[in-house]
């Protein structure tokens, strides 16, 4: 469909949404940094207004027919032109709302969470930077612009994950996140170049409409897969999934932001953004499906053995992302996007709740939390439960419906194996979620509650702080509860309001999923919930598996080994030696040789007159001889 130019209102709103966060970044970072409250205020305003703008735009275009496009040339050189602009269509509008919403809530939440942190103002500056790059990514009109802000998202996540950079682990995690996603972006970049050289047009609409027809299947698949490499990196899919759990080193609100709406969601967003393009090559979609499945299963297994609350949610994020990719890979465009939406809500909620506990009990281990009486914090506890239930897909919460759509998309596939795998994943999810919930609800009081003495991340503050942090929870909890009902409306909105093809609705599928979830929950009840349960997972009785899962299937170990022994140990050392010995040593050797030659020649000047005379005569004689010869 042909895009239309924005009218004044749309233009100003969109630019407002894109521009304000950047403005606040510069303001806070360079101007108001010394004055914390002012900085927070600026940043809050600059993230609140975009939210309003986003909602306004969404409401105003609920029944939009044609995408709205506005661009200008950002860079032009050597036949390559990079455009900067925005593309408003249902997908980008929906995503815009999610991003702005979550980032606003997180900023509000951080008011309490980061209270008293020396670097609070800088933290807000980075949050704004993050918001800016994510918003611009969402609204990007061209693939190159998308890539640019994709990189910036990576940068800001690097800054935020490593925010407490005096902790070695934190800076390490930030570096890891950046480099690993960079590795994936390599493919993304190459894919863009391939498209650029063969298609010459990087506008998203153009790609979606013409790529399939104008590219040979081989090139199409190649570029699609290369781009998907970027997605794998960003969305922490197999095999690049290990950076995300480490990213927990950042402040918890950051994790919430990272995991729900911004960083990792970008990958899913990219695939759905280019969904028609991907559809052009079945092989590519097949790969998406495979990767998604593998990731989901792997990470759920990891979640089953984690005892760090944030770790659990991190693994679950990875697995849920895998789930979305399964949906997309199965051709369920709406399934992926819908699950992305709901997941954004309840995952943000999960993290923010955990944040409250961590902040309160200064520990990340939910067994300890439970023992210290986590139940007493009513609001977080309830919202945690709601979110957990949603995550594991309990009716009537949002997660249930989105999961249903994904599963039904899988059911469409000729091969039933995918569906079974999907169900298995759902079961595992339910298991580890309820494991955590039961532990939190029914603690075993082995020792008196660990007081609030020790202060890890954060620290204990007054009731005001508590409520500042609790308020966003309530909002998100409500959303989590209600989003389920919004499914059909969203679907039609995303489909440009056209009547939907009657998707075959499998009643048995609902039943199956319910059963599976129940099974998972039941197992969790047996092991952790019921009175007198040992709170020991069945896995602890299978040390092999336990170690495997606890060590993330040794993926990290593998990367570390490669880095140490191949990159540092082999190439770096080899090249450095070569540089010292061969390249540089060669030069020095040459110079020494020259000096030696000089010394030899100076021996000619023996000091004995006759030698000199003799040399003279000899040379002249030789010269004469030469003449007679030629």
């Amino acid at each position, binding site marked *: 469909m042909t895009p239309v130019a924005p009218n004044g209102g749309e233009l100003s709103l969109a630019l407002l949404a894109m521009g304000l966060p950047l403005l606040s970044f510069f303001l806070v970072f360079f101007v108001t940094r010394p004055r914390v409250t002012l900085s927070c205020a600026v940043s809050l305003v600059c993230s609140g207004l975009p939210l309003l703008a986003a909602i306004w735009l969404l409401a105003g275009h609920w029944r939009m027919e044609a995408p709205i496009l506005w661009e200008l040339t950002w860079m032009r050189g050597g036949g390559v032109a990079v455009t900067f602009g925005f593309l408003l269509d249902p997908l980008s509008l929906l995503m815009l709302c999610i991003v702005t919403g979550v980032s606003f809530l997180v900023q509000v939440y951080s008011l309490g969470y980061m209270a008293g942190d020396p670097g609070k103002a800088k933290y807000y500056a980075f949050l704004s930077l993050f918001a800016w790059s994510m918003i611009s990514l969402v609204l990007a009109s061209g693939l190159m612009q998308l890539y640019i802000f994709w990189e910036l998202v990576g940068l800001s996540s690097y800054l935020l994950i490593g925010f407490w950079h005096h902790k070695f682990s934190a800076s390490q995690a930030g570096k890891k996140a950046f480099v690993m996603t960079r590795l994936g972006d390599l493919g993304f970049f190459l894919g863009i170049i391939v498209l650029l050289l063969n298609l010459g047009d990087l506008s998203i609409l153009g790609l979606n409409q013409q790529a399939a027809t104008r590219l040979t299947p081989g090139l199409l698949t190649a570029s699609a897969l290369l781009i998907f490499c970027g997605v794998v990196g960003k969305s922490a899919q197999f095999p690049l999934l290990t950076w995300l759990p480490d990213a927990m080193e950042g402040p918890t609100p950051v994790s919430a932001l990272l995991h729900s709406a911004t960083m990792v969601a970008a990958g899913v967003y990219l695939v759905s953004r280019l969904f028609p393009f991907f559809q052009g090559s079945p092989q590519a979609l097949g790969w998406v499906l495979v990767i998604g499945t593998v990731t989901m299963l792997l990470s759920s297994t990891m979640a089953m053995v984690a005892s760090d609350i944030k770790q659990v949610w991190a693994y679950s994020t990875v697995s849920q992302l895998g789930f979305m990719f399964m949906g997309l890979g199965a051709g369920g465009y709406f399934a992926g996007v819908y699950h992305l939406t709901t997941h954004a809500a309840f995952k943000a909620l999960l993290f923010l709740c955990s944040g409250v506990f961590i902040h309160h009990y200064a520990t990340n281990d939910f067994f300890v939390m439970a023992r210290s009486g986590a139940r007493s914090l009513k609001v977080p506890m309830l919202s945690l439960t709601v979110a957990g239930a949603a995550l594991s897909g309990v009716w009537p919460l949002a997660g249930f419906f989105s999961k249903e759509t994904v599963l039904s998309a899988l059911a469409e596939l000729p091969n039933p194996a995918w569906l079974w795998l999907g169900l298995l994943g759902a079961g595992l999810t339910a298991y580890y979620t309820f494991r955590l919930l039961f532990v939190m609800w029914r603690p075993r009081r082995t020792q008196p509650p660990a007081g609030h003495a020790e202060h890890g991340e954060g620290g204990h503050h007054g009731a005001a702080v508590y409520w500042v942090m609790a308020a966003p929870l309530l909002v998100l909890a409500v959303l989590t509860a209600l989003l389920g009902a919004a499914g059909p409306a969203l679907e039609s909105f995303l489909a440009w309001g056209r009547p939907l093809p009657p998707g075959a609705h499998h009643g048995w599928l609902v039943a199956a999923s319910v059963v599976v979830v129940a099974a998972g929950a039941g197992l969790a009840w047996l092991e952790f919930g019921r009175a007198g349960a040992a709170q020991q997972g069945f896995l602890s009785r299978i040390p092999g598996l336990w170690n495997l899962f606890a060590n993330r299937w040794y993926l990290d170990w593998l990367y570390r080994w490669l880095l140490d022994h191949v990159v540092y140990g082999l190439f770096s050392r080899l090249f450095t030696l070569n540089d010292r010995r061969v390249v540089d040593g060669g030069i020095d050797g040459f110079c020494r040789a020259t000096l030696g030659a000089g010394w030899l020649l*100076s*021996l000619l*000047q*023996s*000091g*004995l*007159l*006759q030698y000199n*005379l*003799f040399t003279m*005569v000899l040379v002249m004689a030789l010269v004469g001889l030469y003449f007679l010869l030629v």
Partner: protein
Amino acid sequence: MNSLHTYLFIALVLFCIGLFGLLKRRSLIGMLISVELMLNAVGLNFMAFNRFLAPDPAVGQVAVLFIMGIAAAEAAIALSLILALFRKIRSINVEQARQLKG
């Protein structure tokens, strides 16, 4: 016997003897004498060419006179230097004068 080449040959031989002496002798006096030999060879050359080829018979003779004169001056300077050297190092053997080298 009285062809140009005879004289040239003798001159060449003379020159070579001088050269040989110059390289062989270690005493400065001996070297000086050898140089004189070489100069005489040159003179002989000039005379021979003058006698057999040159249109104007004066040139060669003038040349020879000049050479002899200058050779005399040369000998004077050389001897004075050798004397000076002898004063300093008590020897006129070049092997003794080897401070400057390298």
